[in-house]
């Protein structure tokens, strides 16, 4: 066990409590979604040569890793956005790893290859989130479809990335960051997120497997998915 200050210890405890609360709320969220009746397509498969519900669902589920599968990520502008999407979400993963590992095994994050990988992803995600704030606030289209939750979630994530980068710098002892308060603030921010996420748009990743599977099965049954191009 690593030695921690009382303030950091309190932050760690709050963090773990928040995680448990989030798990409970997420479970309730999924139960809520599953409480709605699953509509079944009673029609015969659309096209014997192409119809396959399972294949459609599989393809749809892993669509996230296939930018060529959608027109919106296939075109040059969309592909750049896709790359930023990948970096942003890898940064989120790195931030989550940072939050948990820094409380359990901080030395692991001091291993150069690990530490710099986490740092690179978090800083990259920070830059993407700054771009996204600009995109959401400057483009009239994005302003039209954005809600306070959309703005707040993005701004909070941006702050989280920034503090995460400072925390990782502190753990690695680089860039002159020596104040451990960053780690405490980071854990409290993470705790806040864990509690807030189930009630916000950020919970979309919880629904992703469901929505992608449903649309993949529906269109796979009809025979139009995976999309055939010529």
């Amino acid at each position, binding site marked *: 066990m690593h030695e921690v200050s009382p303030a950091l210890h309190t932050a760690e405890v709050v963090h773990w409590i928040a995680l448990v609360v989030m798990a409970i709320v997420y479970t309730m969220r999924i139960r809520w*979604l*599953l409480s*709605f*009746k*699953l*509509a079944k*397509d*009673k*029609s*015969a498969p*659309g*096209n014997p*040569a*192409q*119809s396959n519900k399972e294949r459609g669902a599989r393809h*749809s589920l892993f*669509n*996230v890793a296939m930018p060529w599968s*959608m*027109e*919106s*990520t296939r075109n040059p502008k969309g592909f750049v*956005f896709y790359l930023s*999407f990948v970096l942003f979400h890898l940064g989120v993963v790195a931030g989550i790893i940072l939050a948990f590992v820094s409380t359990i095994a901080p030395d692991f994050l001091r291993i150069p290859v690990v530490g710099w990988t986490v740092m690179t992803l978090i800083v990259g995600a920070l830059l993407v989130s700054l771009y996204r704030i600009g995109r959401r606030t400057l*483009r*009239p*289209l*994005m302003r*039209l*479809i*954005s*809600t*306070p*939750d*959309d703005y*707040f979630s993005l701004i909070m994530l941006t702050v989280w990335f920034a503090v995460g980068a400072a925390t990782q710098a502190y753990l690695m002892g680089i860039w002159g960051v020596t104040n451990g308060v960053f780690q405490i603030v980071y854990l409290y921010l993470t705790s806040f997120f864990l509690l807030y996420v189930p*009630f*916000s*748009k950020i*919970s*979309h990743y919880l*629904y*992703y497997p*469901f*929505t*992608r*599977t*449903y*649309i*993949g099965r*529906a*269109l796979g049954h*009809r*025979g*139009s*998915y995976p*999309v*055939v*191009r*010529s």
Partner: protein
Amino acid sequence: MANQAKTHKIKMMEEQLAKKLNRQVVGSLVGCVHCGMCDESCHYVLAFPDDHKMTPSYKADQVRKLFKANHDWTGSVFPWWVGADKVPLSDDDLETLKDIAFGTCTNCRRCTLSCPMGVDTATLNRIMRGLLSHVGVMPEGVRVVSKDQWEIGNQMGVLKEDYIDTIEWMSEELEEDLGHAEATIPMEKKGAKIMYCINPREVKYDPRTIKEAALIFWAAGEDWTMPDEGWDNTNFGLFSGDDGLGGACAKREYEKARELGVDKIVISECGHGFRSTRFEGVNWAGESEPVPMESSVMTMLNYVREGKIKVDPTKNPEKMTFHDSCNNARSGGFFEEPRELLNLVAMDFQEMYPNRAEGFCCTGGGGAMSMSEYTPRRLESAKIKADQIRATGAKVVVTSCHNCVDGLNDLIKHYKLDCEVKQLVNLVANALVLDEVEKPVEEVAVPEEITVKPVAEAEPLAGRKILVVDDEEDVRTFLITVFEDAGAEVISAADGNEAIAMAREHLPDLISLDLSMPGKDGVETFVELRSTAETEEIPVCVVTGHPEFRQVIYDRPVPPPEGYLGKPVDEDKLVAYASHILEHRNEKAN
């Protein structure tokens, strides 16, 4: 506070929304992250880049707000936080919602394929349409068509006697063309293998497609029939979002098929008819084991594959491209077979891009052709499709959908494209090699030489007086020439007032009426003719390229016109129509 201000209609919509929620729908309602990736997949967005309300996520948010305000945790407690505070409250808000749900989306489902989250925005828009329809808020065209489909049994209000009369007319023509007593259209034949269901548009505006299909069935030696009821394969429930209507329409076909004891239903080339009958109708009607169904394209393709009919692609030498109906391709997985058939019956096929499930809507989908109030916007959004077609350099756009035929014809005229629209049934019928057909043993042998007699040869309009009304001199001259060549005595007028005066003075047997004319336009002229005792009985055939013609048909202060033809007019079709209208009028008089 908000609850107190809600009108009765809003409350009814909220109650109805609760009934429409299932897991897939809820997934789409909660899954959107407002990333904007769906934006450029929509032809409305591309055509109106500065109007951001065209973006699919904005349209879907209209129903999402209602959902969040009533069913979502955060939305129920802090509605403003998730945009659920901007729910409709007044009947004026519903009018705005009507314009969004019906006037800015054809439910083509293209945006669904571009959503990283798999949100089915088109389904959400259809739900909004259903909620609005539930409280009686919908475009007039949708209301009238839905009413006709509920009450008369088909979307164009074709009466049973008119339907049967048209089928008999086509049957007689087929028999006459082929000179074969067995070449007729069977009606209500029990135990036939196929029940052929069609789009009412074929009865009303394009009966030649019925004859062409009959010719193909006959050439293949098919055991088929047409039903006297339950023949309409279209379904406005798909467009209005009314699952009850959708189920009722589909059930009529299924029950008729069971009554006749057929092996399968063959659906004529209609995109939404195919989707509604073959897929959605099964679910709306709660059918567990429906009668097998297939598109007539599949039937025709199988005839060629199995050697039941022979085709000569050199008879269709023009450069052609193919437009995928959204309902066939995106929601039906039906896109390779039409191409295979097209390549078998035509010489020069040029692919259009993007295509198949990623093709753009013709802009006539989602019931848009019946909503004349949105026609200008629809035609502007059609620029995307027009550019696609122009890029192919094709002279013929082939499609397997009657809605697409109308939508494409409108955009071809609007954007002055040098091409025409055909369906596969037209091409297959044209490519048929009849004297090489191998008939089944039990069938009557095909005559060695068959000649199809051109309609115009027999002067079918001899002794008839026709009034041609059109402000464009070249069109007027063309119509006069065609009618005179067919033996008619022709008088003409260049505007509405002149037409009314001449109709009163000469009492013609038929009036060919343009709709778009300066001064008193064709609609006003038509209504005045119908409202005047001396002229009310004179049959009118509308000959126009004006898309608002549907206003005449659907808004009915007076009986509708006896016929409609879109410009450019085919010579044979014009004479055939005029002859039919006049014969029908005689029969009624007798």
